[in-house]
């Protein structure tokens, strides 16, 4: 049996599945239910200063659904906790006392004055919480007050507040990053410079879910008006994975621990985050959609996967995929693939044909001897994978590598040598560059 125990920047938990700072971690009642269900830890919903903020009394959530009503993306306009600070602190202390083996991290957001941070840090320390997470990510409501994403979008503030926290507490400091920024490496470097023990990402993405076509108001709508909220759930996972990989591959932050957040719904999602360099993952939308029980399969699935792959410790997975993340310019241009359609599993829907015909390279037939027949024309196929993506039958179309002979599309012999853009004759920066006029016309 694989050992799922996790030690993230000194914070121990029985498994690497934490609940993210969000509605599921706003009260002792919820958190205790989560711990009973098996969650390894929680990041308590963000605390602020009294008087507590107020939330809207209309809808707080909007969503994107599939036609069978599967929730694909969730957006919220809820703010940080709206309960008094001392109530939260008392509950945090009680829960940590009753559940000592679980990770208890407290999310914080107070105005950008050192004294405000000193005050709240002292009070959190008194709860015996395991660590703090600085909420520099919340994109709505708080950011207009100079907190949340308004801090996270200014690297100097990120570094400054991180440094204050490291100065005034011994608790591990996790800095939660906003994705609403052009280059995620900038705030990550700032957090690192400020001494952060880790970063967690992503917080939610600024979003308007939909527009009501009868009232012409954004949704969710409060008394005829709407505002941007924070987008999360399965839809944001690819964006989050990329941001995580940028931090994991940046020389300046490569050693900075990462807590992965963004659409984690299954153990598979979690393993992907781990492989891209995350020490653990945080979950919210999946729990809000299905309840806390989902952690059972996350634990079970991760354990089975590790056994199957021969991993004994979660740490062995962390960063496994990082060396394979590269820049486009280093991709092997001599790697030639062609789509191959398995005629036995083809159901003849013709989607590959029309996708290729209308929008790509006219490389798939539609007819053979008067019958519907879909076959790749190697002379035209650029190996783009669109047909694989649109085919409704898994593994019916596969990309097969050509390892010898001549690429029928380019009439170029297949080479097993690695060659990339940096050395390509068309690249003006390449030592092999041949100016345009010297290139012979095609054909």
């Amino acid at each position, binding site marked *: 049996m694989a050992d799922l125990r996790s030690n993230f920047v000194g914070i121990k938990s029985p498994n690497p599945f934490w609940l993210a700072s969000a509605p599921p971690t706003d009260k002792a009642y919820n958190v205790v239910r989560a711990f009973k269900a098996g969650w390894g830890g929680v990041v308590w919903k963000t605390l602020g200063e009294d008087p507590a903020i107020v939330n809207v009394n209309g809808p707080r959530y909007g969503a994107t659904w599939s*036609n*069978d009503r599967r929730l694909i993306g969730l957006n919220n306009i809820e703010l940080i906790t709206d309960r008094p600070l001392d109530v939260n602190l008392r509950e945090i202390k009680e829960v940590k006392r009753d559940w000592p083996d679980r990770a208890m991290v407290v999310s914080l957001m107070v105005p950008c004055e050192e004294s405000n941070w000193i005050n709240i840090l002292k009070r959190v320390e008194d709860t015996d919480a395991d660590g703090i997470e600085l909420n520099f990510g919340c994109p709505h409501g708080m950011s207009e007050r100079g907190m949340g994403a308004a801090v996270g979008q200014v690297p100097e503030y990120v570094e400054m507040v991180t440094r204050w926290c490291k100065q005034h507490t011994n608790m591990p400091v996790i800095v939660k990053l906003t994705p609403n920024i052009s280059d995620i490496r900038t705030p990550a470097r700032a957090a690192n410079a400020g001494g952060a023990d880790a970063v967690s990402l992503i917080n939610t993405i600024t979003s308007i879910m939909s527009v009501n076509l009868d009232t012409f108001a954004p949704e969710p709508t409060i008394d005829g008006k709407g505002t941007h909220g924070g987008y999360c759930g399965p839809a944001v996972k690819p964006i989050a994975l990329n941001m995580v990989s940028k931090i994991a591959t940046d020389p300046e932050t490569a050693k900075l621990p990462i807590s992965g957040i963004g659409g984690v719904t299954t153990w598979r999602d979690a393993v992907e985050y781990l492989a891209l360099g995350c020490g653990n993952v945080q979950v919210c939308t999946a729990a809000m959609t299905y309840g806390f029980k989902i952690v059972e399969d996350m634990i079970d699935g991760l354990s089975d996967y590790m056994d199957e792959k021969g991993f004994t410790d979660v740490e062995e997975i962390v960063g496994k995929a990082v060396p394979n993340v590269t820049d486009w310019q280093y991709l092997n241009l001599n790697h030639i693939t062609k789509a191959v359609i398995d005629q036995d599993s083809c159901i*003849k829907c*013709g989607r590959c044909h029309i996708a290729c015909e209308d929008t790509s390279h006219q490389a798939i037939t*539609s007819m053979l001897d008067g019958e519907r027949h879909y076959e790749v024309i190697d002379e035209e196929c650029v190996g783009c994978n669109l047909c694989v993506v649109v085919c409704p039958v898994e593994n019916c179309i596969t990309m097969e590598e050509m390892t010898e002979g001549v690429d029928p599309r380019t009439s170029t012999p297949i080479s097993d040598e690695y060659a990339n853009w940096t050395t390509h004759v068309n690249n003006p920066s390449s030592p092999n560059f041949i100016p345009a006029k010297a290139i012979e016309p095609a054909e």
Partner: protein
Amino acid sequence: MAENGQEADIKAGRLDADDYVRNFSDAYPLLKKREAFVESERCYFCYDAPCVQACPTSIDIPQFIRQIATDNPDGSAKTIFEQNILGGMCARVCPTEQLCEELCVREVAEGKPVKIGQLQRYATDHYMAHKPQPFERSAPTGKTIAVVGAGPAGLSCAHRLASHGHDVVLFDAKEKPGGLNEYGIAAYKTTEDFAQAEVDFVLGIGGITIETGKALGRDVTLSQLRNDYDAVFLGAGLGGVNALGLAGEDADGVMDAVSYIEDLRQADELGALPVGRKIVVIGGGMTATDIANQTKRLGAQDVTIVYRRGQDRMNASDKEQKFAQTTGVTIRTYAAPKELVANGSVRAITFESMQDDNGKLVGTGETFTLEADMVFKAIGQTLHCADLGADFSDVELEHGRIRVDENRKTNLPDVWAGGDCISDGDDLTVVAVEDGKIAAENINSILKA
């Protein structure tokens, strides 16, 4: 029976009132919105989709399903009506498992086709519940066409002609328009007077005058129509019923399935309809399954369909056969009727077992007898030319039905025909609709030339 002296057990009111309601309610209820969304997502929006090719009216099926998926059910219905103005009835009665759904790539791949028929009904019912038919008429042409028969072929033809700006007089022998949609189809397939609602919908285009109670050969003659109108379309269906050719066929209780179904469809109260305790149905088509299902649902105790060939040769679709068997109908195959036993009323019928000898059906000499209070003939209908007037003999026939060309034109230069009365018809509603449509287009192009 004669041998034992018992009287035939035929009576009304075999069931409680609630049972009639349940037995004759919608057999395949309308999909709810979410069901339709989920089902529509199953459609792959195939390129050059096989389902479209399988639809006799060439409805753009992937398109109308996509329009359901995008929550545009009215647009979806219009896509359907463009090709098939009786899309509502066809959604209910088409043997989709032999047409669009049989060729659905998901049927081929996994044995579970997209429920095209039910999605079509979702769209058309949605539309018809709140909007009139969507087509506008072209400028008046001053031409008037006589359409004989207000069934699917005639309605389709009349609507298409009207849309091209022609006026139409639509004759029907019955009291109500609709043809077999009104008088023939099993009651649980078209509930809540849908056939008449659909007639109203079709007539909503305007320019169509309807004359019911006017039969060709009785109240009007073909020569009159040809004289008085710019063109004639014959969609009168089949008036005759094939006989068994057995002695005693005129005994009480030996009945035409179609006329009993007609009575049933027109009955104000199903409980007032007399039905036998033991029923034997002879035939293998949709009429056979329809009469069997409906008499069983009226409370008959034993209902047996007897067909002379194997079950795979029955014209009734697999789905209809299974539906009958689920209803409790017994299907016996390879048996041909030999002798009716009657004492004034039919009491039993004797069959000879048959076998398939290299495609040729031969009797084995073995016989069996089934008790019967009612015997229904469902072995096909015929064009009864004698009823259609002396001048009907001007119309050329083929295999006992009207011969038409690919434009549904008869041998007469101003007479077209379609539906069950033509030679190459499949006796399906949807095929009749297509016949009417094709004929109307041809009539239009000739009249406008």
